[in-house]
């Protein structure tokens, strides 16, 4: 039992590497198929599918971010929807400015401001006509909020369910704030009716494909970043915080800065996910901040398998795929299904899909190891 970290293997085991690369390649191919083959061709991928997958990948980034704090550090946040929405709003501010005079009222101001009879942009809208400034906001706003909130919360050692409840209160308060018309973010309608991004028409299939590919690249980057963090010594300290915070403190670590780092990083990642989400779905409103949305993020992670990195991505895809199917075919049953997922996953699948796969894999390979021909034959 040495204290030095064991020799670090490559970032992923070869099998997983192959899986990640294959998945990335297939996902990257889809928008190209969408653009090159005409509607009706066997190889054509519908724009709806592309939009859907783009959305799911944003959710997957958010799930990955949540997994870093929950799965690896043991901090359950019920307020990640807030960071997601803040990133979305920050990007949305640019998109609203980019509408220019094409709004309903043909004014320099966004329609909702004209409607409120405002004459000028409030101070916090200054510079938002610059794309890069807004991209900076996407990172800074969730990051600073998370840093300040986290600093105070972790410093007074708020943990476990207390922390969860307070993050829920935080996002609830923010939702109430953004629902107000006078807050200056469009009230309950939020931002919508975007026309263009960096001069390109936002609804054009080419723009959509680029946004999709950027999201895919971000997801891959986030995955590699998360992997390198969790594999590092830092990651081992984080796991230590999860498993026994007080013991870690007795060994001489101050958990505050470790927690604060991963918490802020997670919020920033979530904000980026939100920023990618908004141009693809074309709307952002305060309901993204509702406590229910944040808890739904948690169930993506739980379903996929917390404490793994592929798990949350799979979980976000599976749960949202089911949601899309149910809400279009059997809308009245979706909440029953979602509720059942919550209960069944926590009761019977504590390690999620990733854990299940691992268990099945182990069961399949274990008999071979002891050379049991009967079991091998069955499988």
């Amino acid at each position: 039992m040495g204290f030095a970290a064991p020799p670090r293997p490559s970032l992923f085991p070869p099998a997983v590497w192959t899986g990640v690369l294959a998945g990335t390649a297939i996902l990257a191919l889809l928008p190209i198929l969408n653009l090159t083959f005409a509607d009706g061709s066997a190889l054509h991928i519908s724009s709806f599918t592309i939009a859907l997958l783009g959305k799911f990948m944003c959710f997957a980034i958010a799930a990955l971010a949540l997994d870093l704090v929950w799965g690896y550090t043991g901090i359950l946040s019920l307020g990640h929807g807030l960071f997601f929405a803040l990133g979305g709003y920050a990007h949305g501010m640019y998109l609203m400015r980019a509408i220019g005079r094409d709004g309903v009222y043909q004014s320099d101001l966004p329609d909702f401001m004209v409607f409120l009879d405002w004459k000028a942009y409030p101070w916090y809208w200054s510079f938002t006509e610059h794309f890069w400034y807004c991209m900076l906001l996407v990172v800074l706003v969730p990051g600073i909020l998370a840093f300040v909130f986290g600093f105070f919360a972790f410093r007074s050692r708020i943990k476990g369910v207390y922390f969860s409840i307070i993050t829920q209160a935080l996002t609830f308060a923010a939702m109430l704030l953004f629902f107000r018309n006078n807050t200056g973010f469009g009230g309950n309608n939020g931002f919508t009716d975007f026309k263009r991004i960096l001069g390109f028409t936002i609804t054009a299939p080419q723009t959509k494909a680029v946004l999709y590919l950027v999201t895919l690249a971000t997801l891959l980057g986030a995955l590699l970043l998360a992997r390198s963090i969790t594999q590092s010594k830092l990651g081992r300290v984080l796991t230590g915080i999860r498993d026994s915070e007080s013991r870690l403190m007795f060994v001489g670590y101050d958990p505050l800065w470790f927690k604060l780092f991963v918490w802020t990083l997670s919020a920033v990642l979530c904000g980026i996910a939100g920023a990618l989400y908004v141009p693809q779905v074309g709307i952002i409103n305060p309901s993204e901040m509702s406590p229910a949305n944040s808890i739904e993020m948690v169930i993506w992670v739980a379903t996929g398998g917390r404490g793994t990195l592929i798990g949350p991505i799979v979980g976000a895809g599976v749960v949202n795929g089911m949601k899309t199917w149910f809400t279009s075919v059997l809308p009245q049953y979706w909440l029953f299904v979602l509720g059942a997922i919550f209960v069944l996953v926590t009761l019977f699948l504590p390690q999620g899909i990733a854990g299940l796969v691992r268990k099945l894999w182990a069961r399949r390979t274990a008999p071979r190891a002891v050379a049991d021909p009967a079991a091998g034959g069955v499988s």
Partner: protein
Amino acid sequence: MRRILISLAWVLAAVWTSAFAALDPALVKPLGGDDADARVEAITRLGALGTPEAFAILNALNEEKLYVTPDGRVLVVEDDKATDPLTGEAFDLPEGTDSITVNNRLRRELESALAGLRLFADDAKVRLKAAREVQQNAGAAQLPMLEKALAKETDPRIRDVLDMAVATINLKSDDAEKRKLAVERLADTTNASIRPVLAAMIEPKPDGTFVEPDEGVRAAVVDTLARIDRHLLVIEWTGNLFYGLSLASVLLLAALGLAITFGLMGIINMAHGELLMIGAYSTYVVQLAFRRWFPGELDWYVVAAVPTAFIITAAVGMLLERTVIRWLYGRPLETLLATWGISLVLMQTVRTIFGAQNVEVANPSWMSGGVTVLGGLVLTYNRMVIIGFAVFVVIIVWALLNKTRLGLFVRAVTQNRRMADCVGVPTGRVDMLTFGLGSGIAGLGGVALSQLGNVGPDLGQSYIVDSFMVVVLGGVGQLAGTVIAAIGLGELNKFLEPYAGAVLAKIAILVVIVLFIQKRPQGLFALKGRSAD
């Protein structure tokens, strides 16, 4: 008795005058004429008469039932039967009779005259309403009539309003002494709308003079304004205090069950809000049942709903504890997720059974309405009942936990589960019953909520964050802490609202709680010693 006699006298008078003319024909005749000014004057003079027959004729004019014959006779026409209002004589409608048209100017005069005449109605409610109407736009012309009404009036409330109306008119009197008396009289008013009128009187004009020329009157105005302001402040504070207490009792009822399940057992029950909702729907079902089978007893359905809601929600709670929650003891975060899932299922179930729309739960008659205090503040009965109900529930829970065997077991299991198990406490059953108790209390909260606001499938969602805040603020495992936290939050909310608006007040409170938790992570009343983790 006296009121009956008075109304009897009025009826007699009405019968008398319908047979024999009591109106001066010279007063009625101009109504049928063409001269607009003469008609307005006739209406004003008829109004000032203040007699039932004047009221009858003006009312007929207002309803366009007043006709004029070619020779200038004014007739009241009802169902093709004409009556002469002067003689009470009835006959068939003569040829060439035309209805008297009422233009806007006439209609305005008519309405104000009619309001004045209603001051003499039999029904005290009508009189009060008329008095308020007159007070709002009283003019000097109505002064004699008001004084006449004041002399007859016996109801102190109506007298008060009339008195104020007279004072309001006298503010514009030419006699400084009269103005001063009026200003002094108005010091007791509870009508905030008089304040700007008074304030305008002492407003300096650009040339240094005042609207009110008399020094003494101005001093009186300053005095009166101070008294009105003080009175309004008292009303505002009392109102805030009462509504804050009412909000506190709602928060308390919503959070008390949580204080047991979360505070004592450590279970994060995200479905707590839905248990409130089920309690509210139980009330609705009981109301339906009463409507169907005991319509005579409908007023008492709330009383029957209290035990029903308790039993239903307690049963739901115990079922949840047995099937889901007990497998998750010691894993609070998983409990949180599982119970959230349950809340979704419960919500959707209710939506499937009762529909997504809000259902209608009516206040029983003894809970609707309210009592007016301080002359301007309405304390509604339903809120008063709920404050009392919250006190009642707290006492019951306290007694249950501290005076019964079950309470002893609950406390034993909370303090040291293993030891309690060793000495023979059936911990599993105690867990189930405790959770059932917490859920049942949520059901009681639901009954109370159904009397205050909308009952819909989303009812619980809006209370879940608030109730957790109360419990966290109060400190886990502390009944007293929960009570004080609820009162504190309720009052703080209502006192902040006038300054910040409802939404900002709520946000401010959430921020305050988050900051407070920094200072005292264990809540207001932290457990000390060994039992503290």
